């Protein structure tokens, strides 16, 4: 046992919490999935390699897998490029209308999935606005030009920058302005400063969001399905179909584990790259970043044009979703809007449905509770993993990534199969038919992303702060609460908001675990738009999307409120009465930048 592990075992808090955590990991991440995998792969007690041979001999499976990996690799590049650009444009350089730009780029935070893709088809699809302009201008244009891999990559790039916008922004707040000034005085060019001073601070976060982007590309579902066309289909639709057929679940699990393994490989490569680096700028008196003017007029113009072109690309699709939500199915299909196309019927149908408000309440309650539990749990876990690196913690960390290794459909089934009978591990109770089971599944599903982002955030905190606090006599808890927590809080808030928004309309997990009296919104939406009834429900999908945008937007406002301002009005840390040292407080985490002690020891 190494020293770090021994140190870990000396803290009673860590011990008790660690035991609880291990129980949770075993009871809800490991055990149900083992039960499920045994049921899938060893239904009659003997393991067969059928899944591998079937998949290997299927052209479609091989092709789809290849496309998924291609897409993941492509997105890792494109999303990083666009994501870094929009963060620098809104937070690092002084551009005109930065706040407006930020709002445009932030539209990705409130909508996603199939609806986001339909937003893009309203612009670029066969009947889309831009396509019609193109066909009018160049009569030879094929109206179906927007399909295949380039189209998928473009849509997923523009809709995939949420993580960058949130997490890189808070990482950028940790850049020390004085190091930039020093570099400028030493004659470094703006480009060089970006590369050598700013980028290193962003690295852990960049790695973390790259993993998320890669995973998002691997598990891409909506965009390839709608605009991939015949030649660019990905593997996730196949996984979902197979997960729904009891006798084909071995195929689903095999494919999913393959994707999960690839993600873990990337994770360990990036972890290795990250290890041993220094990711914070150290100076005697850290000061907040001030936005840089672009002095070269040509470069300034180019950046402005790019930023606003992207702004338009981001903003038009969600706007069109709102517009088309007020029309009928045939208008949506043809894309031709006249004054007579507008109707309130869709909204009336959704809003007057007596049963529509209850699922929304249920979803908000579940999302609130689970997002809170996850963040509390992971703030502690990420801290322990960061502070006490040892083989034990590394193993636990890997176990916490199980939800990334299996499709949520299967993990949900594993939970039901396991806990529909009394089990010792949960005190001999039956969990199916209770409200708890769905909450547990939600919490588990959000553990990996939360852990990744918080680990990156902790990595960006200089050790000297903690040492200083300890030297001043602060206990471990006090240090955590008054020194560390404020520094990682922006990331924690961002990841919680994202978790909340994505849980709000979850379907894959809820479909199996929801209590009949407490069915969340995802199920309502899916039913309204399932097309198993008589009428076509394209329009209703858009109405629900708009309502979700409103709720998600509200949540984002709660979390970011006026923090979305782009650094014009930075609040100064307020010394609190009764505390001599001006430790940062949660209320001061403007961008994370002001949340630093103004006096070093």
């Amino acid at each position: 046992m190494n020293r770090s592990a021994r140190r870990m075992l000396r803290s009673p808090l860590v011990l008790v919490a660690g035991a609880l955590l291990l129980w949770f990991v075993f009871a809800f991440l490991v055990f149900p999935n083992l039960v499920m995998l045994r049921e899938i792969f060893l239904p009659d007690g003997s393991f067969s390699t059928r899944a591998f041979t079937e998949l290997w001999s299927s052209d479609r499976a091989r092709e789809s897998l290849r496309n998924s990996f291609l897409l993941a690799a492509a997105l890792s590049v494109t999303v990083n490029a666009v994501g870094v650009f929009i963060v620098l444009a809104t937070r690092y350089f002084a551009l005109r209308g930065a706040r407006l730009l930020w709002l445009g780029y932030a539209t990705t935070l409130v909508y996603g999935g199939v609806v986001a893709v339909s937003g893009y088809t309203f612009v670029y699809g066969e009947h889309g606005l831009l396509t019609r302009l193109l066909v009018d201008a160049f009569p030879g244009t094929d109206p179906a030009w927007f399909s295949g891999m380039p189209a998928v990559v473009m849509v997923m790039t523009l809709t995939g920058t949420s993580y960058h916008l949130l997490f890189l922004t808070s990482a950028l707040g940790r850049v020390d302005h004085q190091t930039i000034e020093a570099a400028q005085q030493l004659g470094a060019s703006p480009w060089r400063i970006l590369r050598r001073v700013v980028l290193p601070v962003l690295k852990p976060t960049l790695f973390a969001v790259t993993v998320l982007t890669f995973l998002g590309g691997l598990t891409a579902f909506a965009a390839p399905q709608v605009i991939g066309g015949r030649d660019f289909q990905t593997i996730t639709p196949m996984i979902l179909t197979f997960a729904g057929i009891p006798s084909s679940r071995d195929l689903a699990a095999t494919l999913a584990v393959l994707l999960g393994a690839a993600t873990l490989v990337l994770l360990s490569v990036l972890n290795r790259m990250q290890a041993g680096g220094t990711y914070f700028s150290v100076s005697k008196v850290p000061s907040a970043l001030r936005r840089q003017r672009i002095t070269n007029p040509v470069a300034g113009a180019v950046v402005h044009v790019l930023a606003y072109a992207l702004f338009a690309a981001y903003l038009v699709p969600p706007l069109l979703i709102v517009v088309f939500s007020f029309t009928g199915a045939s208008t949506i299909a043809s894309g031709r809007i006249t004054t007579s196309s507008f109707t309130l019927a869709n909204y009336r149908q959704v809003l007057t449905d007596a049963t529509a408000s209850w699922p929304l309440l249920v979803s908000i309650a579940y999302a609130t509770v689970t997002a809170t539990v996850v963040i509390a749990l992971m703030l502690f876990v990420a801290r322990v993993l960061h502070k006490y690196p040892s083989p034990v913690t590394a193993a636990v960390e890997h176990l916490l990534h199980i939800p990334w290794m299996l499709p949520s459909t299967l993990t949900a089934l594993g939970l039901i199969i396991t806990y529909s009978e009394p089990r010792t591990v949960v005190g001999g109770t039956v969990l199916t038919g209770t409200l708890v089971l769905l909450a547990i599944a939600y919490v588990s599903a959000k553990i990996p992303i939360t852990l990744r982002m918080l680990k990156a955030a902790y990595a960006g905190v200089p050790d000297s702060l903690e040492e200083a606090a300890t030297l001043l006599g602060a206990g471990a808890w006090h240090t955590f609460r008054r020194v560390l927590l404020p520094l990682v809080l922006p990331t924690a808030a961002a990841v919680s908001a994202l978790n909340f928004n994505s849980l709000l309309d979850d379907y894959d997990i809820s479909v199996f675990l929801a209590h009949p009296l407490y069915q969340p919104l995802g199920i309502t939406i899916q039913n309204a738009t399932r097309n198993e009834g008589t009428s076509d429900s394209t329009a209703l999908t858009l109405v629900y999307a708009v309502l979700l945008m409103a709720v998600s937007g509200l949540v984002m406002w709660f979390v970011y409120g006026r923090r979305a301002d782009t650094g014009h009005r930075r609040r100064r840390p307020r010394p609190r009465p009764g505390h001599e040292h001006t430790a940062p407080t949660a209320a001061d985490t403007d961008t994370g930048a002001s949340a630093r002690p103004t006096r070093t020891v």
Partner: protein
Amino acid sequence: MKSVRKTITAAATVLVTGLMATGCTSPVAAGGQGGTGSTKSLVVYSNSVSDGRGDWLKKEAGKAGFKLQFVDLGGGDIRNRLLAEQANPIADVTFGLNNVYFENLKKEDVLAPYTPSWAGKVDASAGDPTGKEYWPIVREPVMLVYDKAAYSSPAQAPSDWPDLWTEKQFAKRYEVPADLGGATAQMVLAGILSRYRDDKGDLGVSKAGWDAVKAYFHDGVPAVADTDLYARMASRKVDAGQMWLAGKATREQQYKVTTEAVHPKIGVPMTVQQVGLVKGTKKAADAKKFIDWFGSATVQAAWSKQFHTMPTNKDALAQADPAAVSDTNSFTEQDIDWSFVAEHLDQWIEKVELDYLGS
């Protein structure tokens, strides 16, 4: 500003946790009628309660003294949930799935035997062939429909599914499903493969059958997620595709497309929705009463009028929606051995997904 936000957040959290902790009754749960002691509360799993059907049924059942809670999911999800919850079922009754799904449920021992009071009024062969575990309620043809405007005369249009892949003029002009999750797509597949039954063949089907399926998917245009078949007909992308009876009329209106359903000589697959009692329900007596009420002539006739379906209950036919009845009766029912289909369908879907889709 900040303090306001904090207060609201805190208040919301308190409210929400309070709501969760007390597990207060939802307005949905309280929505039933006749709050007397005789109210029978039941959980019903169904894939046929979307589109307003559930709300209507809740109201009608409320008058009869039942308080219904629906779990409304797609057919496959209903089956999977019932299978997973077998050790401790939450559902009391399930209805709406077709014979194939019900045959699966029966085989997995999810259903309890029960003979409803109206059993004599329905054609028992349309339900559970060898027992008393599920009973037919509604019949619906699964059709091949084509856009009338695409062909100068009906003679030019396809007259049966095989025309689509054997005659060149239809190639790349008809829509095929992009995945086989939906019950309609599965019925079409069952209808094609049943023609080539060969017990010595791969998964009970001859090579000619698999070649036909391969050609069917190869010559078709895959469906696009979120774009209805009728939308694509309206924009002249495709001329034909699969549709179920109740969906045809509303879509014609929505998209201003006139379509015609093909009447093949061999017949079309008839989806027969079934109802069954869930094994292990703690409310078996009430659940049986509900099945008796739900399948009765009065309720089935009213349901038919409301939702354009054809009931299987012979006594209900007289008061049912005449158009739905005559439309359904205009089709010959294809002779399909549903036990054979139920036995193989999952493997068929897997094979098609792996080998023929997107080829």
